[in-house]
Each structure stands twice: as structure tokens, then as C-alpha cells.
């Protein structure tokens, strides 16, 4: 497959889907469900009012805060779990129990603890981001080639220097993968988190548009924006894979 093909075929598929959507809405004569053009108009309306950028910014800020807090805790924790068998044995069972609980299930507790302000969604995103980074980081340390540690010992490198110069660089590609997965999950969760009474964010926009007179054009517009922003976030995270010190992992 050549490069034009990579670009043309997905665009063609999107065009087909939009066409199907459009004809279906027109054929069915629905007055609530928007046509693609209605969605474009709704997006432009939001952009004109300036609320579009506010909603995106609020969501991104919440995701950013929760995600960074999670990374700050999960990376050291994952490294310790990967390095010390005792830490792994102690923490892993609890993590494996907490991990399958959807962050959505935490909403009632979040409201109880943090109220309906900004803290609740940040907490939920923190929870969602935490586990993929912990698990991937620990796996990165576990799967690192033992001969690197032997070589470091051979050159008289041990303790904290060994950790910073060998263990962390060896695990870094895994850490980055964990962060990519986390950010994807965090973006997934922010919408749900913002459905708790709040005055901003893309999740709020969806619920508010529906409640305020069935504005399904705005609902779908918000959905499309969520999808596109998620894609941009992933492209951004992929840039981390281009750091020189981790290219070895992705180069082959």
C-alpha cells in the first residue's frame, strides 16, 4: 500500500458513512436527529459563541491534571514493583482487584468525598490513568534484559545510579506505552465524569444539550469533537516514541 492509499481510503470511508447518515436522516424525516450539515452548523455556532473552546479547555485541563497526578504516582510505584519482589507481592493483589472497577463506579464516592466541583472528575481520571501506567512500568522492569544489569555491575555501577542509568532507560519504552494507554482511557472517562453536575466540559455539553431542548445537533457535534481531540492526544503521545533514547524499541 502506498502513502496516497493510506490517506485516500479512510477519507473515502468517512465520506461514505456521512452520505449514509445523511440519506437515512432525510429518508426517515426525523426532526430530532441532525444531518451532518446540522452538526457542522452547530459546531460553528459553538465556535462563534466561544463556548466550544471553553468546553474543550475545561475537559483537557481536567484530563491533564488527573493524568499527570497519576503518572507522578504510578511511574515510581511501577518501578518499585518491578524492582523489588516484596513490593510487587504486596501491592499487586490490591491493584488487580481495583483495576477492573470502572472509574464510573467510583462516581458516587467521588461526589461524597470531593463534591460536584472540579476535584471529582480529576479524581476519576486519576483513578483511570493510574493502573495502565503502573502495570506497564512494572512489566518494563520485569522484562528488561538481565545482561544489562550484569554489565552495569561489571562496570561497578549499582544502587541509585544503576536505577537511573540502566533500569529507567530500559523500562522507558514500556512507561511511554502505559502513558499512551492511560491518556486514552482518561479521555474516555472525562466525558462520563463531567456528566456529574458541572458547568463546563465536553461531557457537560452533551448532557446539557440534551436537557436543554433536545439539541441533538450539539450532542453529535460534541461527540465528533471528543473523537477528534482524542485522536490528537494520541498523535501527541506518539511523539514521545520518537525520543532518541527509546527509538531502539520501536525501530525494528
Amino acid at each position, binding site marked *: 500500500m502506498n502513502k496516497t492509499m493510506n490517506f485516500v481510503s479512510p477519507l473515502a470511508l468517512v465520506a461514505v458513512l456521512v452520505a449514509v447518515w445523511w440519506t437515512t436522516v432525510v429518508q426517515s424525516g426525523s426532526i430530532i436527529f441532525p444531518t451532518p450539515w446540522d452538526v457542522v452548523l452547530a459546531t460553528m455556532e459553538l465556535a462563534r459563541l466561544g463556548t466550544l473552546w471553553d468546553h474543550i479547555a475545561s475537559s483537557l485541563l481536567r484530563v491533564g491534571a488527573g493524568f499527570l497526578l497519576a503518572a507522578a504516582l504510578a511511574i515510581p510505584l511501577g518501578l518499585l514493583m518491578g524492582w523489588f519482589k516484596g513490593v510487587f507481592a504486596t501491592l499487586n493483589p490490591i491493584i488487580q482487584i481495583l483495576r477492573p472497577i470502572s472509574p464510573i463506579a467510583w462516581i458516587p464516592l467521588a461526589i461524597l468525598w470531593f463534591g460536584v466541583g472540579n476535584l471529582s472528575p480529576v479524581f476519576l481520571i486519576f483513578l483511570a490513568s493510574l493502573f495502565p501506567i503502573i502495570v506497564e512500568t512494572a512489566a518494563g522492569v520485569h522484562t528488561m*534484559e538481565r*545482561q*544489562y544489569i*550484569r*554489565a552495569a*555491575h*561489571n*562496570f*561497578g*555501577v549499582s544502587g541509585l*545510579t544503576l536505577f537511573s*542509568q*540502566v533500569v529507567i*532507560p*530500559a523500562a*522507558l519504552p514500556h512507561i511511554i506505552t502505559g502513558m499512551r494507554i492511560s491518556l486514552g482511557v482518561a479521555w474516555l472517562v472525562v466525558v462520563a465524569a463531567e456528566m456529574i453536575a458541572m458547568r463546563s466540559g465536553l461531557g457537560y455539553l452533551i448532557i446539557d444539550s440534551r436537557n436543554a431542548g433536545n439539541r441533538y445537533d450539539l450532542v453529535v457535534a460534541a461527540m465528533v469533537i471528543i473523537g477528534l481531540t482524542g485522536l490528537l492526544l494520541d498523535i501527541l503521545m506518539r511523539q514521545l516514541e520518537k525520543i*532518541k*533514547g*527509546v*527509538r*531502539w*524499541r520501536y*525501530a*525494528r
Partner: protein
Amino acid sequence: MHVKIVVRDIRKSYATEKGPLTVLAGVDFTVAHGEFVALVGPSGCGKTTLLNNIAGFERPDRGEVIVNGSPVTGPSRQGILISQLGSVFPWLTVQQNLMFGLKGMLKKDTKRIAQHYIELVGLKGFEQSFPYQISGGMLKRVELARALAVRSEILYMDEPFAALDALTRIRLRIELLQILSKERHTCLLVTHDVEEALHLADRIIVLAPRPTKVDSIVEVQMAHPRRLPSSEIQQLKEEILQKLGVDTEMNDTFLGGSLSGAAWDSSYRPNEGNE
């Protein structure tokens, strides 16, 4: 020449499901300063375990290893291990890999030393390359240069060239000999390739397998550069292979004489290419 390494009656067993498995059953030998000694034995005979015990990565159950007059208690820069697996750090450039072992010195000095050894192993121009950007043979040169850069007195080599293709392997042997003629190091090589041992070593210690003991010691007194097809080398090769339990008579009859190295190799190690 004084004695560099003394290996005294080292023994090692491992616990397995079927009870203790003795791998090393009392190994004794010495290596002189600047000497190149090869340990040969069949695959899986405990050669790697033996080398790990000597280099300090494992502790023997009994016996001791003495280097420069003091007992070995763990790995150190005094003796660097170069293994088949390779341990060049993939997240560092060639230059940074060489500088890794030189921590604690002035950066200016480490750069100069790294550069010297990069040029010695013929990697000038690849200083800023990452390991994934260079070939397996070059990677081995980096590993060798990194060991030389810390002025390691001893090079422990565990089948260092086994993962490379036949041509690269021979080229690296010749380069290793050239480097050793400039900077003499004590070398202890583990290999199952008798020809490699005959090419490089001053003395060859033939190991009896499982549990590993010293079977016999063969002196290789030929000067470098050595001609592998020469009759002395082929005679020694035959002698060693016989000790290792390979029936050379059969091959002589069927493959047309022991002087043809190619026939030899294909009978002894069918996976290897001819030379």
C-alpha cells in the same frame, strides 16, 4: 610471567526438582598474566557457569578464585565479561556506551578515551550511532571497546562471536588478535568452537562434561598469525576433538581427510558455514 588467575577446586551444584545437580565438580587451573586461555567443551557442559563463577557473577559452593592475589567476591572492572547475548545499552549511543564505564572521571578525559577505543576497533564515524543502527559485528566491537576503555585487565569472553555469521566471526577473531598485540590483556575464552580456540589461545583447557572437570590442557605454541589449515593446527584439532568424544576416524574416511577444514566443520558443527 606471574600468575593472574588461580581457579582452585571450585564446585557448584544447583537444586532441581530431581535433587541437587552438580555442575562443577572441582575445577583447577591457573592463567598467567597476559595469557590467552580457552575453555572448550561440548554445549551445555557448564562452561558458562564456570566463567560466571570466575568472573564473580556467581559464587562457588566450595573452592575459590583468586585474581591478582586476592579472592574474587563479585564482578568488577578488573575483568569485563563479553557474552554471546551482548550487553551494549540500546538507549545510549556508541560513544555514550564507552563512556558508561568511565564515570567519575572528567568528561573531557572520558571523551578522549572513548574516542581512542572507538578508533582502535574501527568504528570511527559511528560515535553518535545508536546500537539498533549498526550491525551485529559492529555491536561486538563496541562491547570490546567498552571493556578496553575501562582498562580491564582481564577479558572474560563467553562464546562472544557465536551469534554472528561465519565470515564476521573470523574477521573479529583477527581484529581481536591485532588489538591484543597492541594492548595485552589476560583473556579467558569459553567456546565450543575448537578452531576458534586454536586460532586465538595460547593454551586450551579441555573440559569433561557434566559434572565439569578439567580433562586435559593443550599448549598451542604456534606464533601469530596462525594458518588454520596448517598440519600442526589440524593435528591439535583432531587431538582435542578426540578428547571431546568426536570420532575423527569416521570423518577422515568419509569426508576425505582431516586437512580440509571445510569437511571438518560440517561434520563437527553442521549449522556452521564453511570457511
